[in-house]
């Protein structure tokens, strides 16, 4: 346990080998993770919990941390060595609750260049528990920490009031810490500039625009120089061979390969498991997932996101949110699921509901964005801008409506801003790898299953029946061909596959824009749905879904009127 953003998750990963996502902002961990480690002869179970400043919780994530406390035999209290005073407050509270404690004095390397000297022996003596200096990102001190865990003790403490506790902390700090003066580093100058309104806004725009361009550039380069040639030169001959072996037609051929008219394979449109199924996920979506998470990981680890939160706080309040909601929202651009989970760092239930609803409606995930770039981008950049512009407008308007429609109040912003850190290459790559693996493991079966299902439905004419039934709404209100119904329904499974289904429909650019917007806004995909259900209960999901359907029909209808 420990304060937010002191490196608890990194220590946990080091101890157990179980990798959990860690970043440079308070509130990265919002749930608990269990893992085991070898301890002497036996095994010990370790739990990673969200950070908390005190044992009196103020948000959902802190509440989770507290609920875990009684189940621990030993508490590894991770302390930020560069901010001893504030961190020791929690340490004393832990000691007072009579659990055996060891202290990991993390970020130890930072104390040196920040001009802080700490007398370790004195600190051990005053606290009465083992204290080990650690540098979790590099692994320094972890072995010592492991060997000391069995020696955790719970020295007798008297219960203190908050004031007495601060006084005690003050006495300890005065005896163990020495600070020598030194000049601002360039990182600190950057830190100050990026939070002032004028310079900060300019930097924020530059950073977000730069990120967008970089993500696009990296993904497109990957697609045209690596992945497309791979599919065209290596995979296409294999598929054509297989097609011949299967006789060029028949149910199995259609399921696996799909259309092969003219001896050419149209990977996005063939609709076979081994063609479209693989290509949509690995050829179109994966490159975007890769570059998005690379960029996000860097921004996270540098420590930029909380500063962005402060800058946008005023605007976000107009939407019934506070600035910190920008972090879940940004995560939502990767995948809505972690985005919605991250709303746990928000304090009130109302904010959480508004933020989660806005994410699931107006924030397109990386998979969907990849398809929007791929399909809509073919018709011209202006159409891509139209999709994004509409979604942004929806986000703002819906936020305003929810602000007045959902009861409760939005508390004011109160967050700690971490210092900028130079991200460790290993940490960034490891996080990227974990996220990509997560994407591939979760998406592959659903994408392939979805393509299979679509093929079967087509073969048995089930889609025609559904399309006919829903046709009036789709054709009149949205101005889409009735076959698009199929794609919209498939959106419940996965949005990327669904948009892919619109590709062969021969739609105008305007129709494609309407289709993308409606697809982005309407029903959440199944994974998002499950998360919403878990976090907000059935009533919450029904409420959110009703808002979604209404909002997507209204936005799609208006867009259709403008474009046609």
């Amino acid at each position, binding site marked *: 346990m420990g304060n937010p953003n002191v490196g608890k998750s990194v220590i946990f990963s080091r101890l157990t080998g179980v990798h959990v996502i860690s970043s440079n902002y308070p509130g990265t961990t919002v749930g608990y993770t269990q893992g085991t480690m070898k301890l002497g002869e036996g095994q010990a179970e370790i739990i990673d919990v969200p950070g908390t400043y005190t044992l009196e919780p103020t948000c959902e994530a802190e509440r989770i941390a507290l609920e875990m406390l009684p189940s621990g035999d030993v508490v590894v209290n991770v302390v930020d060595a560069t901010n001893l005073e504030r961190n020791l407050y929690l340490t004393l509270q832990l000691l007072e609750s009579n659990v055996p404690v060891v202290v990991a004095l993390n970020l130890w390397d930072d104390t040196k260049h920040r001009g802080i000297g700490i007398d370790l022996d004195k600190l051990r003596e005053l606290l009465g528990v083992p204290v080990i200096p650690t540098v979790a990102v590099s692994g320094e001190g972890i072995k010592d920490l492991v060997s000391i865990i069995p020696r955790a003790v719970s020295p007798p403490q008297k219960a203190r009031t908050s004031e007495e506790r601060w006084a005690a902390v003050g006495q300890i700090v005065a005896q163990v810490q020495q600070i020598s003066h030194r000049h601002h580093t360039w990182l600190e100058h950057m830190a*100050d500039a990026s939070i002032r309104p004028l310079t900060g806004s300019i930097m924020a725009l530059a950073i977000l625009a730069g990120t967008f361009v970089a993500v696009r550039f990296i993904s497109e380069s990957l697609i045209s120089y690596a992945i497309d040639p791979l599919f065209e030169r290596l995979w296409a001959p294999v598929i054509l061979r297989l097609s011949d072996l299967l006789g060029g037609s028949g149910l199995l051929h259609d399921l696996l390969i799909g259309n092969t008219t003219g001896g050419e394979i149209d990977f996005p449109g063939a609709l076979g498991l081994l063609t479209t199924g693989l290509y949509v996920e690995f050829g179109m979506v994966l490159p975007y997932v890769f570059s998005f998470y690379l960029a996000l990981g860097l921004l996270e680890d540098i420590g930029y996101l909380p500063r962005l*939160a402060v800058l946008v706080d*005023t605007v976000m309040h107009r939407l019934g949110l506070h600035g910190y909601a920008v972090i879940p929202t940004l995560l939502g651009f990767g995948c809505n699921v972690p985005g919605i989970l991250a709303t746990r760092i928000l304090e009130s239930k109302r904010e959480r509901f508004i933020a989660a609803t806005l994410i699931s409606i107006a924030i397109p995930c990386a998979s969907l964005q990849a398809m929007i770039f791929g399909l809509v981008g073919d018709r011209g950049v202006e159409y891509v801008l139209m999709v994004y512009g509409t979604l942004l407008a929806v986000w703002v308007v819906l936020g305003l409506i929810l602000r007045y429609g959902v009861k409760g109040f939005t508390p*004011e912003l109160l967050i700690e*801003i971490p210092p900028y850190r130079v991200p460790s290459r290993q940490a960034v790559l490891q996080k990227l790898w974990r996220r990509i693996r997560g994407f591939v493991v979760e998406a592959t079966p659903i994408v392939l299953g979805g393509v299979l299902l679509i093929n079967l439905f087509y073969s048995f004419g089930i889609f025609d029946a559904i399309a006919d039934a829903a046709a009036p709404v789709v054709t009149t209100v949205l101005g889409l061909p009735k076959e698009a119904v199929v794609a919209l329904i498939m959106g419940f499974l996965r949005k990327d596959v669904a948009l892919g289904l619109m590709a062969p429909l021969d739609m105008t650019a305007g129709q494609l824009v309407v289709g993308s917007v409606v697809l982005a806004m309407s029903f959440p995909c199944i994974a998002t749905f499950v998360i919403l259900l878990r976090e907000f209960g059935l009533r919450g999901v029904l409420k959110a879904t009703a808002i979604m359907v209404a909002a997507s029909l209204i936005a799609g209808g208006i867009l259709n009127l403008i474009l046609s």
Partner: protein
Amino acid sequence: MTEKPRTDGERLTAARMATGQSATVVEIKGGQGLVNRLDALGIRPGKRITKVSAAFMHGPVVVRVDRAEVAIGFGMARKIAVQPD
């Protein structure tokens, strides 16, 4: 949550400090909830704080306390009474 606009002639607050100015916290003029939350972040009477920045239109105020930077909503910052150096 709305607070009466106050002229606050006699006492400077964190909300109205100038950027770069340092001051000592005198009192948190708020309920126990606010006092506790600020306390947890190390902002309590007797602590010296330095204002790092303020956002447009009564947006959050950023102060440095010890070696941590904390962003505080404008309304909360208005309840932190300070004594300038």
